[in-house]
């Protein structure tokens, strides 16, 4: 990724993309549906990315990657095929072709960078926006909960699935390497705090990501051939999470969140920590 992109100052999606590309190396093609990333990538005739990128309509991203991967493998090439899509492009609009590609066992890596909104078009709510968060289409706070895309992908039983966060770039880098070394479909879900949409000052981008993990609002783990391993930053956080308010307060999008929504968010954290702890121990 070359310097001088159109990403907002302090954008952690571009930080994540840097580490994805570092992990993947030069023998890689990216498939990017409409999103902030397709803007960050640059305007014709220039691009900020120095590997081949294919821009495609939302609904077709994983289908396109499937075809590319099959074509590469058919001629004996190991080229990495990576979809880099936003949460809107993944949870809402691209879900059917993604489900198809996972079902067919496509040898590719699907990355969803999750800024919990439609960033590119002006911060509208997506299926990934958390309960209580204000967006331009939920000015009083979202009344629905965040869709659990990881559970949906897990139901496809892929050989590799991981969560990551831009505040832990080395963890992300390792997960990208692992995902690409495994044959078959892999999924990485990266939480990428977005200063412009979440309404916090750009210098806090990394701090906010750390608070998301420390509060248990975002849990880092990987599931390799069905076996769950909690990643080290989340191990400590799950035993002793910091108050959720520490994560929410610096973000303008959670200003004035209702006590009821706050309560539900807290319950979900407790439930998720319990569920993952039991799964790791092999209880469920």
């Amino acid at each position, binding site marked *: 990724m070359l310097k001088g992109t159109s990403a907002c100052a302090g954008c952690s999606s571009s930080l994540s993309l840097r580490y994805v590309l570092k992990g993947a190396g030069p023998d890689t093609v990216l498939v990017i549906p409409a999103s902030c990333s397709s803007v960050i990538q*640059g305007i014709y005739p220039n691009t900020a990315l120095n590997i081949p990128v294919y821009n495609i309509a939302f609904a077709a991203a994983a289908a396109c990657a499937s075809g590319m991967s099959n074509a590469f493998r058919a001629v004996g090439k190991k080229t990495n095929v990576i979809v880099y899509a936003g949460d809107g492009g993944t949870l809402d609009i691209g879900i059917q072709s993604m489900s198809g590609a996972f079902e067919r066992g496509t040898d590719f890596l699907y990355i969803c960078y999750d800024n919990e909104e439609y960033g590119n078009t002006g911060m509208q709510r997506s299926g990934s926006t958390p309960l209580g968060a204000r967006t331009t289409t939920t000015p009083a706070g979202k009344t629905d909960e965040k869709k659990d895309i990881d559970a949906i992908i897990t139901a496809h039983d892929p050989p590799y699935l991981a969560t990551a966060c831009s505040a832990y770039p080395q963890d992300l880098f390792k997960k990208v390497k692992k995902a690409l070394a495994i044959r078959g479909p892999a999924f990485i879900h990266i939480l990428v705090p977005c200063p412009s949409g979440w309404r916090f000052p750009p210098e806090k981008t990394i701090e906010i990501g750390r608070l998301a993990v420390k509060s248990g609002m975002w849990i880092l783990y990987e599931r390799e051939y069905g076996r769950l391993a909690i990643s080290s930053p989340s191990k400590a956080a799950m035993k002793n999470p910091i108050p959720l308010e520490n994560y929410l307060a610096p973000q303008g999008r959670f200003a004035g969140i209702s006590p009821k929504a706050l309560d539900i968010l807290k319950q979900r954290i407790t439930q998720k920590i319990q569920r993952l702890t039991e799964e790791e121990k092999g209880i469920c």
Partner: protein
Amino acid sequence: MSGRARLALSKPTTGAAGRTGSWRVFRPVIDTEKCNQCGLCQMYCPDAAIDEELNVDLNFCKGCGICANECPKKAIEMVREET
């Protein structure tokens, strides 16, 4: 000219969105006395504007302030740009 030249292919370019350094309101200034060369500022810069030798590329640094905020030694000061 071959037909390929008409394909809508973009070329990799540094500064695809221009000199993004012009967006900056505050510039990061590293105090080499305080710095212990841990490299965290370089690791976290979203725009890869800090190199291995810890030089800041002011042509492209957007002045987000992440490097200053993450520096464990408080060795980076964000100084207002002259207008």
